[in-house]
């Protein structure tokens, strides 16, 4: 009985694997939308400055994304009205992961200059644009 069920499960899973496409581009596009949304709801004055990677090289993309994610935790909403949108956006940003290419990156997060939140988010947007640009249609 167990054998039969296991065999059928394998068959079912393999058919699902065919249809499950890498939705990478859709994920990245959603992230880009979230960052754009966040740019309008984040507080820019009297806040802590954040380390902002600028134009990282390909080897440092993963480190840069991790750095941006660390920085987003320190962002604050502009006012209480945009709280829910802001929180939703932050959750999306926290969940995002980029595949680690494994190459060595020479710069750490702290080596980058500190900037205001809106500049920080603009650089993050640029990074995601670069990622989308370089994603092939079949995936990453």
């Amino acid at each position: 009985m167990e054998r039969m069920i296991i065999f059928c499960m394998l068959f079912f899973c393999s058919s699902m694997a065919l249809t499950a496409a890498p939705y990478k581009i859709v994920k990245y596009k959603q992230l880009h939308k979230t960052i754009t949304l966040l740019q309008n709801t984040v507080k820019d004055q009297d806040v802590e400055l954040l380390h902002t990677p600028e134009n990282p090289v390909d080897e440092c993309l993963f480190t840069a994304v991790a750095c941006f994610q660390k920085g987003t935790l320190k962002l604050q909403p502009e006012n209480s009205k945009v709280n829910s949108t802001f929180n939703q956006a932050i959750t999306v940003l926290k969940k995002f992961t980029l595949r680690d290419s494994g190459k060595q990156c020479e710069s750490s997060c702290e080596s980058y200059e500190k900037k205001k939140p809106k500049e920080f988010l603009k650089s993050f947007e640029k990074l995601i644009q670069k990622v989308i640009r370089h994603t092939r249609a079949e995936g990453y």
Partner: protein
Amino acid sequence: MAVHAAFLASTILLLCGMGPCLAAAHSPSGVECVLFNEEYMTCMWGSRETLTANYSLYYWYENRSPVMECKHYLQDQGVSIGCYFNQSEIIQFQPFRVLINASLGSRTLKFLSKPMELQDLVKPEAPVNLTIRNMSSNQLQLTWTSPYPKAQCLEHAVKYKSNKDTNWMEHQVKGDIFSFPSVDYEKYYTFYVRSKINSYCGRTQLWSEWSVPVVWGSNSTSKGSSHGHPRRAIDVPTPLLWRCAGQGSMSPQLFPGTAEEQLHWFWIHTVLIPIASCLLLLVLVVLLVRMERVWVILMPRIPNPSKNFDELFITHNGNFQEWAGVPKDVVESFRPNYSENICYVSELPPKDSCEPLWESGNYSPSVMPGTPAAPCEHSPYKNSYVGL
């Protein structure tokens, strides 16, 4: 003195004349760089009418490369008005700066540009292969392909007009297909398409040129016809939905055809196949549970031989001979009908050539002639018996 004054005045006038001339030569707008379809780039700083000086361009990428001079100047009647960069000299997502030296005579003016982000200056090429298909219920479908390699980065705009309209209608389109809802077969339509990099890949406002037009309908003067390619020749017109979901191991080139066919195919793969396999699994489980025969074939019983020996253990109480059916006289014959006494056996001593004294005196042994007879004092035979 007058000569001096005149000379001074003329020098001043000359310098003043040259000043604005030089300043005007430095066209007010600065440098404009455009990347054409990410294949080459041109940076122009003016046109022949405004420039009269000698120009040279130096460029570099901030923190990334040393200062380099332009290798290929674009000239207009002997004056450099721009620089041509080929694909290997272009790096996107790095700040790019340009320095222009304008020299006229002995004076040199330098102009330093702001840092430019080249990914925001991409101008894709106009779409090609515009095709119109006639769908059912008076609907037209316009499709095209773009020479720009990354289709996920483009958004398009369609402009159309019939021969009876005065204004152009413009629509923004995200995918590679435009559906025109209600077509009037009396009118003659013309369609144009152009593309732009969308906000997911850059922050540009540069649209491409309008494509070559495609027409549909009948004219009063000429019999217009759609520039219809046969269905199979369309190269990757896919709606965004299909591109989102169907990119696993299937490349779109395997499925030439219209967007409708591909949408159909997408539904089959993401919905129908999982549901079908779920149902199959369910059916199999139900079959297994309900049909004992199938169960027994798949999962045969482990044979239990104890049933065959029930008789032996229960009926005959472990008596193997009874159960085996051995006849009674054979059984009896094996049983002994006598009794045995225990018999002691001991060893005989060797003979010492002496005559033993016979106690029982049953018979006197004959004396063999020639053998000396000697009495045995002790005979071990006294107290032992041999016999049955």
